Every structure is written in structure tokens, then in C-alpha cells.
């Protein structure tokens, strides 16, 4: 995980005050596979004993993979107003 935080730290990312991702924890609590965790290349989703999923929206690279990964409609994803800016791309 440390390695991931370091690599995310290479990017310019203007993080907003509110999350651009919301999850319906009623669904997440009952989800066995939690596919969002596996597909996210930025470690945005973490298992949470109480709520099922915790969202670290400040890590998000805005790829949108999690939006399509969740087959249960628990995830609401919008692009942030600022967010990531790549230098190379």
C-alpha cells in the first residue's frame, strides 16, 4: 500500500472538499465479492467492517472502472470538478 501511495503522489491532483463517489453501504455490507476493490488501480475502495466499503476518493484516478465493476448499482460515480492532471498521459 505504501508503494501505491507513493506512485499516486507523483500525480498532480487537486482534491475537492466533497467526494465525487458515493456508495450505498446497505448494498456494500451484503456484497461478498466487492469487485470495486479489485478493479480500482488506485486503491480507492477498501473493505470496511462496519459499512462494507470505505471510499478514499482522494486517491481516484478518474478511470471509471469501479462504476462498471459494480453489478449491483451500489456505486455512484461522477467526475470531480478538478482532480487529476497528467503531465505525460
Amino acid at each position, binding site marked *: 500500500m505504501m508503494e501505491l501511495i507513493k506512485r499516486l503522489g*507523483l500525480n498532480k491532483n487537486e482534491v475537492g472538499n466533497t467526494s465525487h463517489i458515493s456508495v450505498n453501504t446497505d448494498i456494500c455490507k451484503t456484497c461478498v465479492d466487492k469487485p470495486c476493490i479489485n478493479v480500482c488501480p488506485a486503491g480507492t475502495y477498501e473493505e470496511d467492517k462496519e459499512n462494507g466499503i470505505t471510499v478514499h476518493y482522494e486517491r481516484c484516478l478518474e478511470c471509471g472502472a469501479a462504476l462498471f465493476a459494480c453489478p449491483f*448499482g451500489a456505486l455512484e460515480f461522477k467526475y470531480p470538478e478538478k482532480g487529476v492532471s497528467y503531465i505525460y*498521459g
Partner: protein
Amino acid sequence: MDYDVDVAIVGGGLAGISAAITAANKGLSAIVLERGERSGSKNVSGGRMYIHSLKKLLGPRFKDAPLELPIKKETFEIYTGEKKISFSFENKDTENSYSILRSKFDTWFASEAENLGIPVSYSTLVSGIDREDGGLVLRSDRGDIRTPLVIESDGAAAFTSRYLGLVKEKKFPMQPVAKIENNPDFMPRQFMVGVKEIIDNKTENDYGEARTILGLSNGVKGGGFSYTNRETTSIGLTLKLDSLEKHKEKAFEIIEDFREKLGIDGKLLEYSAHLIPFYRYDSLPPRYAENLLVTGDAAGFLINDGFTIRGMDNAIESGRLAGEAAKKIFDSGDFRDTFAYEQLLEDSFILKDMKAASRISTLFGNERTFDAYPQMMAGIMERMFSVSDNPRENIKDVMRDEVKKTGIGYYTLIEDMLKVI
């Protein structure tokens, strides 16, 4: 309704800017809405563009494009366990494709549209679209824009189509993923996620080299790539979401392994990710609707024929065609009838190549391609390149034996081979 512009373009990437340039050349008024602080700041591509579409769009101005290196060497590498099969093709004469870094390229590309008088509104996030009086109203954090026609160039997630209700994901009731993953409506089947690293590693050559790498994604369906740029090297993986979902490792762990196995040294300069459309030809999302033309990744224009995987030339060409169609639709005065765009697409290489490639893309959806076939090929190579006290084996016997080991029937094998040819 009074309109602000003839056509509004959502997304200032390759497709959107190509549409803007074409619209400007056709005398239409247009605006591009780009959510990044500049074009390219949100864009990621594997890193190689086949340049025919760009040349067609720009004509002689093409020579100013900030591309990286012309790709003159192609290498295919297939790994299976400790074994690796590879083959290379070099052509010093070709300038068919270039390595590319999108942040730099798209910023320049957008300035080409701006030089033609098309405004590009940066840091502008479209948050909704409404139909009103036969036209569309785009809602953004910089205000509303009223337009009779929208060109959607907002990438694989296609939010514009989503806002208009043209694309909807099927939501399944809660159950283990294993029970629904083969359902055609299971959305993860339709996408790949690309993870990419820029490495501080400069090639000694004055030309670029492309490597396509299979078998280093730790069992996840997908492939790897590496392209040399002027000053850096791009490496990355494209991973199928449905396969990644049930995998024990996460995407960022797989790419760490990947780089180590490739043995490319140098400091990591950037880590990025992007969604890639991977629709089957017969299940592509809508490409046109009333007042709407859909281009590039948003329309699912990714072509994978086994030798080349390409989206950028399709994005540019579909953007150009959308700009041409916009003019035709504008002249007709009926913005509900957008079929002119579909006609242009059908006559273009985009739909023709996608159709032709659709057979082989089924090959990339099955486990045999990533598991059994590389093992089989490596098994044949191993026995043909080994010498011992035993009499040499006949290649026909070796092949028959290795095919048998895979447990795949001859019929399936031949069927798969025919897909490639």
C-alpha cells in the same frame, strides 16, 4: 429556442478536437467543453498512434504535431512460466505509427482548433443534459449551453449518453459475481482498464520500438505493452474488468510485478489509469440519436485484430466524420435526423475494420488464448530446441503431443486458428 452555437462538443480529446476542426472548416459555429485544465490533462493512451487519420485531418499541418518516435520495430512476446516465445519485425522505411504522449499532444491539438476560431472551454464539467424545444441544453459548472446538436466525445464511460438515458447498466440483485459473470448484460465484460507507467528510460535509437506482451498479467485476461518515447518509456497493461474482478491481486499490484519482469530500469515518473471500451461488434452502444452524434471511445470504437490494438485513429476519424455529418444535418435543418453520421461511419474504415476484427476479439475473451496456447507453443519450442541422448523427435509428433496435453480438441484449435487468419 435560441441557440448559443450550431454544435457543442463534449470532451476536448482526439475525437472532440477533430470534430471541432472539421466543424470550423465547414463554417459551423462550435464550442468544445473540456473538464481538464487543458486538453490532454485527463487523457491517457497506451502510447502508439497509427497516424493515417491525423494526416487526413490536418493535411500539411500534420508535420507540426508533437509526436514522439516513429515505430520501426515491433516485438511480440509471449510468456508462460519461465518460458518465453518472441518474434520481431523491423522496417526502417515505415512511418505508419508513432509513440505518443497525450498530455503534450492533445494540448497542441486543441490549440489547432483554437487557431481556427473554435473556443475550447477548459475546466468545464458537463453535469447533465436536458431536451428542450427540439434542442439540447448542456448543464455545466460554467453555465448552460443551448444547442441543436451535440457531438459526444467524452470517453469510454460515455456520460453524455448516460445523461440522455441512451445507455443504462443492468443492475443485478445481490448475488455472488460468479453467478452472473457470463450474463451478456454483465457490464465488466465490456471494458478493460489500462494502467500505465512512464519510466525515465531513454532509448538509444532514433526510432521507436513497440512491444506487445502476453502472459505477464498474472493470469488476468489482457495484455501488456511498452513503447519508447523521445526521453522516456511507456509501459502498461490492459486488463479485462470481468477477469480482474475475481482475481486475488489488485491492478496496481499486477503492474508492479509487470515492470519487474520486463526489467526496464529507471525512475517512475507517472502512474496513470484509463478506461478502455471492449464491446463486441454486435453489442456496441448507440452511435447516434436525435440531436446527438457519438464518437471515439464513447461509441466503443476500439479495434483489436490480434496484431494491432487501436483507438486513437478511430477517435480522430469518427470526430472528423461527426464534423462532416454536423454540416449535412445543419444544412438539412432537421436535427432529429442524424442518420447521416451513421452512413459516413458505415462507409469508413472504422465500422468495416471493427466488423472484420470482431471474430478475433472472441479469441481474446477466452482462457485458451492466455493459458493453454502459450503453454502449448512453449512446449513445442522447448522440445525442438532441446538435444539429448534420446533420438530427435519429429516435429509433427511433438506438435500432436503438445496439442493433446492442452486437452483442447482439434476442432476448437482449428476454429481458433481460423479466427486469426
